[in-house]
């Protein structure tokens, strides 16, 4: 390092006197401008925090660690296989797109890793590895890069990958197994409906303790509400996610399902059950809060979360599927540009039309 620095500085030195020598002769305006002391004009923002895209992304990955660890604890090798497949194929897809587009490799920013990890956490434990890789490829190539890459995608890529898999392989995507640590520990994976499915199709409600710790059947990373809450709160405290979105999402789900439960407690599940079951926690903290696909204004964030919660309850109670977190977030993603437009803050002094 110490030897390289002077050698790098030397070739630059002869270049600096060259420019002023050429320019004053050709352009009389050069009097007005001295290249030695340039005035730097840059557009806002002028104040920078230490937040960069990689920094935010790696913090999100850190926040996903509890849910990932619990997924591995509950579903063991099945979880390891799906997570590794999903993440590695997301990285390979990202690299392929970078190569085709002829741009710098964007793997170090961590966004592809998050997409792969989030997709893996939404998949059922018995899902095949080939299909997992396919979903990851779809998420990165179609969900993210067809729209222009990170920052331009309209829909959350991981959810789009999951929606693709749901439409392509509807049966494997809704075949759930008990965690190996649960009651049938001696058997090599027993199919069982999720708590939401049990309630919807058989009218059986599940114990809330299982929903909290995650010792239930469900997708890899969605079963434990506590693990997701730990990571989600970390994100909110570090301000890497807008607190309004998960709050309004959960609040709307609670209130709307509470109204139905109040009307008829026998036929509709309780709002607490609605909050803790399915992929709501994972979706509310990690997918709805995706900075690219959620509104930028405070009011917009409230509208976004409330809309997602409302759609979610309607899908869960009246739709054909027991779970609707994915579709509710994707639908609100589609509304995000509109919400942004209508909640644009007024300029100071602007007269209301």
């Amino acid at each position, binding site marked *: 390092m110490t030897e390289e620095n002077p050698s790098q500085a030397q070739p630059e030195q002869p270049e600096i006197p060259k420019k002023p020598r050429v320019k004053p002769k050709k352009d009389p305006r050069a009097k007005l401008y001295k290249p030695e002391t340039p005035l730097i004009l840059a557009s806002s923002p002028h104040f920078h925090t230490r937040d960069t895209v990689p920094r935010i992304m790696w913090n999100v990955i850190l926040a996903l660690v509890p849910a990932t660890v619990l997924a591995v604890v509950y579903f063991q090798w099945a979880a390891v296989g799906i997570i590794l497949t999903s993440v590695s194929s997301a990285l390979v897809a990202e690299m392929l797109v970078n190569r085709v587009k002829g741009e710098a490799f964007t793997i170090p920013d961590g966004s592809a890793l998050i997409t792969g990890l989030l997709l893996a956490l939404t998949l059922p434990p018995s899902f*095949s590895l*080939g*299909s997992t890789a*396919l979903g990851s490829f779809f998420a990165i190539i*179609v969900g993210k890069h*067809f729209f222009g890459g990170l920052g331009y995608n309209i829909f959350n890529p991981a959810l789009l990958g999951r929606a*693709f898999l749901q*439409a*392509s*392989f*509807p049966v*494997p995507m809704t075949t759930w197994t008990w965690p190996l640590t649960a009651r049938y520990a001696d058997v090599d994976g027993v199919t069982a409906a999720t708590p939401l499915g049990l309630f919807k199709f058989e009218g059986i409600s599940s114990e809330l303790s299982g929903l909290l710790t995650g010792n239930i059947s469900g997708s890899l990373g969605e079963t434990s509400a506590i693990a997701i809450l730990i990571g989600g709160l970390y994100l909110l405290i570090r301000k890497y996610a807008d607190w309004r979105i998960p709050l309004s999402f959960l609040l709307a789900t609670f209130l709307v399902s509470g109204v139905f439960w109040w009307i008829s407690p026998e036929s509709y599940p309780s709002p607490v059950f609605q909050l803790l079951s399915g992929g709501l926690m994972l979706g509310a903290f990690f997918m709805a809060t995706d900075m690219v696909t959620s509104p930028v204004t405070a009011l917009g964030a409230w509208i976004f979360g409330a809309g997602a919660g409302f759609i979610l309850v309607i899908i869960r109670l009246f739709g054909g599927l027991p779970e609707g977190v994915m579709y509710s977030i994707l639908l609100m993603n589609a509304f995000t540009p509109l919400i942004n437009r209508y909640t644009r803050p007024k300029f100071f002094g602007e007269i209301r039309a």
Partner: protein
Amino acid sequence: MSSTISLKTEFVKGIWKENPVMASLLGLCPALAVTNAAMNGLAMGLATTFVLLSSSLMISALRNFIPHQVRIAGYIVIIATFVTVADRFLAAYLPVISASLGPYIPLIVVNCLILGRQEAFSSRNGIGRSLLDSLGMGLGFILVLVVLGIIREILGSGSIFGVAILGDWFTPWMIMILPPGAFLTLGILIALANWYNDTSRSKDGGVVS
């Protein structure tokens, strides 16, 4: 009128450069709806080409007799006649395909591709040119429908023209035989075609080929 354009150009333009589906985005309804299998795509393409050719022949022959104010109604009557012919022919001789295409054969009447060619071309050009134009457009339409059908059938059912080519290891992607698969495949095909056009154009030095 347009004698400066060579006959070959009139014919070739419909296959790639002015391809009805890929370039003009006309006739999307059948292109998306019936291409869940290659055979359906081929049958739809052939039926549309037949209607396109025969109505172009009639309309270019009658172009000086149809009053300008009622020309669209006139075109529709002529097109509907040939659509009925195609519909009844398929129902009589190829009932299986007719059943799988369902309402989309009668719906050829409202295919923008056909009406568009009559309005934009056959009503202003002679019989020979109109036939060449229609043939080119029809071939371009068949090409896209068959390619779409092949891709969707391989991925969605694991077969081509009903012959299974992928073994049991392959899990068919249900989405490909559903409407989203049609939109995805067509979108990707158009993107690839535009990408190819852009790269080949920049090699020529900015000249539109």
